[in-house]
């Protein structure tokens, strides 16, 4: 990559105005550090991943508000996790987490389990308690 080929696609870049350092060669073929404002191809890839999470989050939110699942799937996607990541963050088995997705099970959860979820999402445990008692509002 030559210095003048360093991508500068600042428009809708995920770097939010920041610049990233790349290594590129000058006219004589000598390497230099060069700042890039963003690359269209990379940005498209990032947006795909974010859009996928967004869809999952919205679906989980609707299911939660319709009373089909507990609030946990919604929070999980909101904080950009999946079941595996949530299991690793809380130290709970995946099958337990899946069980906690059921409304009746979630409503019976003791505070010591809720604290683990609260820590994983970095939320106050009171908020999870409110959800447990049936609050269906946005965060």
């Amino acid at each position, binding site marked *: *990559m030559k210095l003048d080929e360093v991508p500068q696609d600042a428009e809708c870049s*995920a*770097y*939010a*105005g*920041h*610049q*990233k*350092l*790349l*290594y*590129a*060669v000058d006219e004589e*073929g*000598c*390497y230099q*550090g060069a*700042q*890039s404002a963003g*690359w*269209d*191809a*990379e940005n*498209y*890839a*990032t947006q*795909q*991943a*974010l859009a*996928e*999470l967004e869809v999952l989050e919205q679906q989980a939110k609707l299911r939660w508000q319709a009373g089909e699942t507990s609030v946990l799937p919604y929070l999980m996607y909101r*904080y*950009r*996790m*999946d079941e*595996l*990541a949530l299991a*690793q*963050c*809380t*130290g709970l088995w995946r099958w337990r987490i899946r069980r906690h997705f059921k409304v009746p099970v979630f409503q019976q959860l003791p505070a010591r389990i809720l604290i683990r979820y609260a*820590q*994983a999402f*970095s939320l106050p445990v009171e908020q999870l308690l409110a959800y447990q008692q049936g609050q269906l509002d946005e965060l």
Partner: protein
Amino acid sequence: MNFNHQQSAHCESGVMSSLLTHAGLPMSEPMALGLSSGIAFAYIPLVKLSGMPLIAYRMPPKHIIKTLSKRLGCRLHSATFSNPAAGKQALDQALEQGRLVGMQSSVFWLPYFPPEMRFHFNAHNLLAYGREGEEYLLSDPVFEQPVRCASDDLQRARFAKGALAAKGLLYWLEDVPSEVDWEKLIRSSIVSTSRIIDGLPLPWIGIRGIEYLARKIARLDEQAKKYNRLYLTHIVRMQEEIGTGGAGFRFMYASFLQEAGSLLNEPTLCAASQQLTAIGDQWRQFALLCVQHSRGKSEVPSLAEISSALLAIAQAERVLFKELARWAKRK
């Protein structure tokens, strides 16, 4: 502390470059990557990132830190903490002693990262060089300028749980030599890189890994449009986004080869650098093909085309690293 922040392409090589330069052994970031044999390729289907296989263009986290300090003969002081409060205390203490401290942390909980870049990746590296009240002065290698971070946020990021959890890892270098035997270091690091890239009898590592991925792409089901889109863009993200200097570290390593070549006055290395630059451009072209296929607009490259572009890269890297290995072993 008299410390100069320097922007880097990758967090770990950037941190090592800054730590060594600060300790009196000036070292560029590409040199830190090259001397620690940090470049690689790995396709690991057993480790999943949001349902997709792990694709890495470099050695696992902490490899650069450990290998480089070992090869240079400096002492790496490192500590992890089961108690977050003790971790904070140790950081404060080290800063009071005037140390430049390396830290591992999560990306997701660092508030100064743009929201679009915040994913659960726990092996980010950064430096702390001071504290003002409840705010830490940080040098995050991938940012243009030094940043500040509130104590609570930094604690959360250092002690985030999950895969590759940092457990508050702190590290710094002691006994950094002021002179090193460049020739010996460069030769041995190139030998071990060539072994990783093209010497392991494992189907997922190095060139075999690239070929494996190429076969995987060729075998994708044309009908599963959504999965293919997510799969191909996942490859691109692994290659471009996670602090790689573009083209999955290939340009950075080419820069190392050039620096090493002029340091030792070895035309072979400079020629290899040019070759690797061309391979890096091929990687970028491959990323472009993946994105074009996913976008599905006019003139969509077929999966077979994408796969053969990747096979061509594998072939070119094999030739290059064979040659480099031959040079490195010659006396």
